[in-house]
């Protein structure tokens, strides 16, 4: 028994179609500069004039920052309330339009797939679609997360299973 996660929701408690509202967040100039300095120091994330001249048309958050902030909202609203065992990966990450300075982003997570790992029956594999919008309800990011959640009562290992 893992004492950290014992009282959290486990794999068996999750349902396909469950929707989790992740709240919203204002993306400030300071946040954009701080993230860009450390992880994405392209001039169009660090300098207003360079930003205006770029494809983005003005100061915008790094797409990697939008994803990081979404992950933070997902942690606060969902991952820290389930018996999370970490992420396997992301797929189909799209940034249809930039998050501009001062935008308010809000995010929704939808559980779209649940299956038990065949080789590790104590691991439930959860597929989550994340959708992020700005204050005009325009989509700014979508991505699909595959992560693992503890199974409370694991069954036996399936024969000949790989994953």
């Amino acid at each position, binding site marked *: 028994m*893992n*004492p*950290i*996660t014992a009282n959290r929701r486990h794999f068996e408690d999750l349902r396909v179609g469950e929707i989790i509202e992740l709240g919203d967040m204002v993306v400030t100039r300071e946040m954009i500069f701080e993230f860009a300095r*450390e*992880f*994405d*120091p*392209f001039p*169009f994330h660090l300098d207003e004039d360079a930003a205006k001249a*770029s*494809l*983005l048309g003005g100061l*915008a958050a*790094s*797409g*990697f920052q939008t*994803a*990081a*902030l979404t*992950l*933070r909202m997902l*942690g*606060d609203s969902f*991952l*820290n309330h389930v018996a*999370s*065992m*970490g*992420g*396997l*990966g*992301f*797929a*189909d*990450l*799209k*940034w249809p339009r*930039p998050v501009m300075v001062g935008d308010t982003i809000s995010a929704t997570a939808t559980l779209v797939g649940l299956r038990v790992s065949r080789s590790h029956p104590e691991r439930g594999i959860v597929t989550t679609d994340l959708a992020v919008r700005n204050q005009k309800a325009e989509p700014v990011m979508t*991505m699909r997360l595959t992560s693992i959640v503890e199974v409370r009562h694991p069954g036996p290992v399936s024969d000949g299973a790989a994953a």
Partner: protein
Amino acid sequence: MTRWYEDVPVGETFTLGTHEFTAPEIVRFATRYDPQYFHLDPEAARHSHFGGLVASGWHTVSIGHRYMVDTLAAEEERLRGLGQEPGISGPSPGVNKMEFKAPVRPGDSVTYTLNVTGKRVSNSIPGWGLLFNDLEAVNQRGELVYRAELVGFSKLRDYKMPLRLRLMLALTRLPILGNVLAKRTG
């Protein structure tokens, strides 16, 4: 790699750099962006199936991106040093896939490499091309910890804008008409 679209060779591999992940850095990233107990608290992390502190996958991703941006900047310097005008890298429209293959632990040294697997001219943005890149991150024991299929914009050197588009662009730069056009097309 901050080269013109035409000068980016498909099949070429670039070493982006090696990063040592320290415990304080792992905890600092997790505190801000991914506050799960196995990224945050070495004691609590011992109860997880990782058996100890591990870096957030998005930390591994973000550091890899940083090394790519630094490599682009160094290439730009190099080209300017040779008296050449460097190309322009644009933002990314998305990522096809990111996979976390093994945990990154404190003290691990992770080496990132980028391989250009394909390119094509953009259909939606005139004058720009799309580059398809495979990113791989390997630890000091040679184990693959992370791989990704990335897409990025790169500007064409030899692009001639059609007259119609040039005219439109010139019109949008007139103050009043520009606002009207921006409202109608935006």
